[in-house]
């Protein structure tokens, strides 16, 4: 018999919500010179604070809070995208970047950087779209290319292979551009490692919109997604419109991944780990699973963001490095445990 830490999805959801609130509060206190005391931050946020207080309030409102909320939203989008990818590919190790969106976003950013640098005249318009827009467009173009190369989304294996091909080709494109413009290497590295440092309220609003759309779509298709677990043939025999469903899910996945990558760069492992961990903690169907994976993804990235700011303060670690380390450690632990269980049998 399989045992779960939680009996009901709601209980895990409540715990994740509480932890998230706690983290967001801690996040508003964490500054480059260590933690501010909660009372002083609260005093600063009240009307009639002195100059120092007003300054602190501005830092909290304009930098720390949007950053914390942004990290949570980006993590939530990746968690949701991971849960969708794992349902669509019926593989617990599927990852939101499988369809080439990561390399598409990288190439988009690369080209935008070149355009801003004024080095290539013919892509000048890209500079106006901005890095965020370029990353989003790149991710979406890559997913559409993958679907076109796989001649639709009906065959899982073909889709995965096409995703690999698109990732390799677009990755080569980025390398070529960087080879021609080595001065961009450093800015590009920031994107590749992922960072939550530059998320503002605008970004938060866009990510929130993408998250709500994604959750609504998943909720509406929830029972059908559960049906997919029994295999495509059985799902079809029960009258489910499998092909249309897969298109909708893959576009939703691309939207969620694109929105996250555009604002925070390539953050590793959150999309893989969040649905995976939540699935071990409580038994869930697709509807609750999507919400829990999003909440856990948000929590993981918000926590990683806080750690990244504190570990070597006043300097910062790129948050993607931390998630990769923590996620890699988690996977290793899983492998060791699985190995141990196998040996015992």
């Amino acid at each position, binding site marked *: 018999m399989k045992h779960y830490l939680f009996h009901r999805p709601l209980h895990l959801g409540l715990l994740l919500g509480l932890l998230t609130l706690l983290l967001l509060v801690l996040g508003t206190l964490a500054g480059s010179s260590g933690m501010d005391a909660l009372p002083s931050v609260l005093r600063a946020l009240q009307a009639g604070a002195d100059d120092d207080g007003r300054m602190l309030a501005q830092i909290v409102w304009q930098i720390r809070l949007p950053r914390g909320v942004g990290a949570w939203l980006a993590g939530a989008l990746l968690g949701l995208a991971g849960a969708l990818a794992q349902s669509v590919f019926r593989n617990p190790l599927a990852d939101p970047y499988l369809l080439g969106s990561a390399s598409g976003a990288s190439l988009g950013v690369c080209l935008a950087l070149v355009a801003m640098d004024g080095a290539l005249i013919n892509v000048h318009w890209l500079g106006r779209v901005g890095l965020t827009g370029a990353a989003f467009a790149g991710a979406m173009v890559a997913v559409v290319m993958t679907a076109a190369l796989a001649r639709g989304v009906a065959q899982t294996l073909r889709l995965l292979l096409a995703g690999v091909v698109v990732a390799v080709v677009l990755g080569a494109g980025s390398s070529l551009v960087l080879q021609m413009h080595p001065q961009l290497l450093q800015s590009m590295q920031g994107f590749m490692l992922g960072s939550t440092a530059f998320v503002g309220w605008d970004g938060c609003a866009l990510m929130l919109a993408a998250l709500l759309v994604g959750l609504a779509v998943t909720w509406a298709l929830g029972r059908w997604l559960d049906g997919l677990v029994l295999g495509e043939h059985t799902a079809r025999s029960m*009258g489910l419109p499998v092909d249309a469903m897969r298109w909708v899910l893959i576009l939703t996945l691309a939207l969620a991944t694109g929105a996250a990558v555009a604002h925070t760069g390539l953050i590793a492992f959150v999309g893989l780990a969040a649905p995976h961990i939540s699935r071990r903690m409580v038994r869930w169907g697709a509807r609750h699973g999507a919400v829990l994976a999003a909440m856990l993804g948000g929590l993981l990235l918000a926590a990683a963001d806080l750690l990244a700011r504190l570990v070597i303060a006043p300097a910062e670690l790129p948050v993607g490095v931390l998630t990769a380390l923590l996620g890699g450690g988690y996977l290793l632990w899983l492998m060791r445990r699985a190995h141990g269980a196998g040996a015992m049998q």
Partner: protein
Amino acid sequence: MTASIALPPALQVRGLQVSLGGRPVLQGVYFSVAAGRWVSIVGPNGAGKSTLLAALAGLLPAQGQISLLGQDVATMNPAYRARSLAWMGQNEPAGEDLRAWDVVLLGRLPHQGWLAGLQAHDLQVAEQALRSTQAWDWRERSMGTLSGGERQRVLLARALAVQAPVILFDEPLSHLDPPHQADWMDLTRALVAAGATVLSVLHEVSMALQADEMLMVHNGRLVHQGACADTRTHRALEQVFDQRIAVHTLDGQALVLPRRASSASQQERA
């Protein structure tokens, strides 16, 4: 008498043709199955039995015409088709993390609206289905923790929970021990007695001979359709299996024994 004439056949197939990867797997298949019959489909490995079943369920692109309860499947509303015909495949994923109970409830999907939840009636039907395959006791267990036979009984219950008048089973007896094989036979007879039509691909010929009728598939063609009790069906069976089996009748029960290769060739010469 007039009532039986007015009833359309449960399934009617005209000129069915299926190609997979450019290779014809089934061709020129014509047959008709009356409602309330149990029909077994037999044939050598790779003859096209599972393909036939999947094509009947509308899971494969096929040419020709298939009528289900008097209506053309091609123009049928998918939800209505799903309620009228249940299909249980062979080696399909079983949803390792799901409880047996959740899997059986998925069988109620064809009866549910898009956003609607489960009704009390759905729970009742799922319970009845799990009890009828003797799987009720492990309804709370995850599919991944069940043995092959236990899992098979949950999947059978999932197909029963659809409550379709026509049910297609592909190798329903695989992984089942002899007592549970006998239980499946009883269950099928009860379904048929209640008016359902059952088509089952059965690999074990003596089990297949327990059905009312038999369809024999060989090299992608339907080579024989006849009553299981008919000796002509027995002779056709021996022929389909290259005379490597012998069908005997003992106390009115058909008994299938394997024949050695040498005696089979003697039989052929004779």
